[in-house]
């Protein structure tokens, strides 16, 4: 595979992963309300807790992902974000009941109960997913002059993914599947991202971080 072709393929994969990442974040966030409701209800502050923790996780993820991207940006690290966030999402399936029972028994006020439970279950995986955005911008940007354009493209696809993730989850997924099944789908999507970045990276030919984005 020639170098420009491989680079182009990698760019498309990165853009696609940013889309799926945005999709998965909102899917998990919407399901969060359902995961927490049997223990903390659906009062307005339960949603407050979930949104707060997601925003906080994402903001720190952006910060750390951005910092990490300034030191030897490479595709292997990028792929590992997805693998790790998939791994860190597993407790939402396997330990959420246990976690929430522990919190429920110790914290009487459902405001703080939901805040603590949301932190324990969602902080790490969502933080990792937040790191994807700045890191993927770094991998796509090669020159200062088109950095804004790349950032714009990344924001566009990831937020579009979020919009679709919200819509599909709330309108259809919850009607078609159980919560855990949807969570497995989200984890599968993350693994798909990690795998496709890793595979394209291993293809013969040199892919470099930060190359000119080719327009068709």
């Amino acid at each position, binding site marked *: 595979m020639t170098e420009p072709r491989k680079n182009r393929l990698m760019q498309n994969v990165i853009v696609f992963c940013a889309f799926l990442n945005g999709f998965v974040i909102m899917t998990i966030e919407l399901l969060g309300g*359902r995961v927490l*409701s*049997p*223990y*903390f*209800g*659906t*009062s*307005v502050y339960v949603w407050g807790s979930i949104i707060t923790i997601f925003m906080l996780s994402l903001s720190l993820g952006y910060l750390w992902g951005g910092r990490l991207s300034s030191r030897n940006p490479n595709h292997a690290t990028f792929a590992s974000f997805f693998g790790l966030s998939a791994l860190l999402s597993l407790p939402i399936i396997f330990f959420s009941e246990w976690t929430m029972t522990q919190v*429920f*028994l110790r914290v*009487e006020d*459902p405001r703080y109960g939901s805040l603590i439970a949301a932190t324990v279950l969602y902080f790490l995986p969502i933080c990792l997913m937040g790191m994807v955005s700045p890191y993927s911008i770094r991998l796509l940007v090669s020159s200062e002059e088109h950095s804004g354009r790349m950032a714009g493209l990344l924001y566009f696809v990831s937020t579009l993914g979020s919009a679709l993730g919200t819509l599909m989850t709330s*309108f259809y997924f*919850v*009607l078609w*599947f*159980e*919560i*855990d099944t949807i969570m497995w789908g989200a984890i599968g999507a993350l693994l798909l991202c990690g795998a496709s970045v890793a595979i394209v990276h291993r293809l013969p030919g040199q892919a470099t971080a930060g190359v000119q984005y080719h327009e068709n």
Partner: protein
Amino acid sequence: MKTERVLHRTRRLWRQCALFSLSMMASLFCGVVSAEVLHEEKSVYRNIFVTEVDGRRCLMFNAIRGERNQTCMDMRNPKEFVFHYARMTMAGLLVNPNPQHILIAGLGGGTLPTALHEMYPDATIDILEIDQAVVNVAKNFFNFQESEQVQTHVVDARVFIKRAGLEGKKYDFIVLDAFTGEYIPEHLMTQEFLEEVKQVLTPDGVVVANTFSSSRLYSYESETYRAVFGDFFNLKMSGSGNRVIIAQQKPLPSMGELKANAQPLFEPLKPYGVDILEFPARMGTRPDWDQTRRVLTDQFSPANLLGR
């Protein structure tokens, strides 16, 4: 002369037409055109309106689509229940005619706890209401009063009942009425929730649930109740879009027992506009829903999507 009269009539007709279309437009825009809004209470969920028309005072959750009356009270006869479903709730007394510990999820205007307190002054009544604004309105506009016996808890019903189960609290009369019609709290309709309700129910206790009789949800909900409680009484009345589920842990009483329990309740319930004698015949246990529907669980509870 004649033409003048015709002209006059035409003009009057025009004026009426104009007035009519204006009022139609106005009602399109603000819904509560003919009702006097007595009060608007701010809430973190949705603002609550108290309206009064022809001596009938109502609590509403949505003034834009003004038809959603939650609770109404006839101010000339404040005791009488205005809605069918409120009267139907009293059918739970046929199963347990002497409740001592009552739990009510969903306050509304508070007419139900007020009536139960008047009938059973020694019974304790715990009321769960998620919205403080509803409690304020019930107290200020619907004569609802708290006391040592009657206590409201501003809390999500699921949270309170789960904790009550852990603390070993028991109730012998549980009313589930936390549905506004606009949004269905999906976590209050699952098998797991009903198991938690069962945990706080005494062996002789009764669960009375005000639910929907239309929409696809009917079958799902019925199957869910049956999965937890087995057979239950299904009470429906013509002219009401609601149905009331009456369930118990032990086998349900016979028709003879229901009728026997109804007799002494007739007089005490009369001031509330409840004709308890007409209920037993309408309480069936035969499933009239699609029994192949799956049970709603915490994992699968798209109640709002099914309720469309």
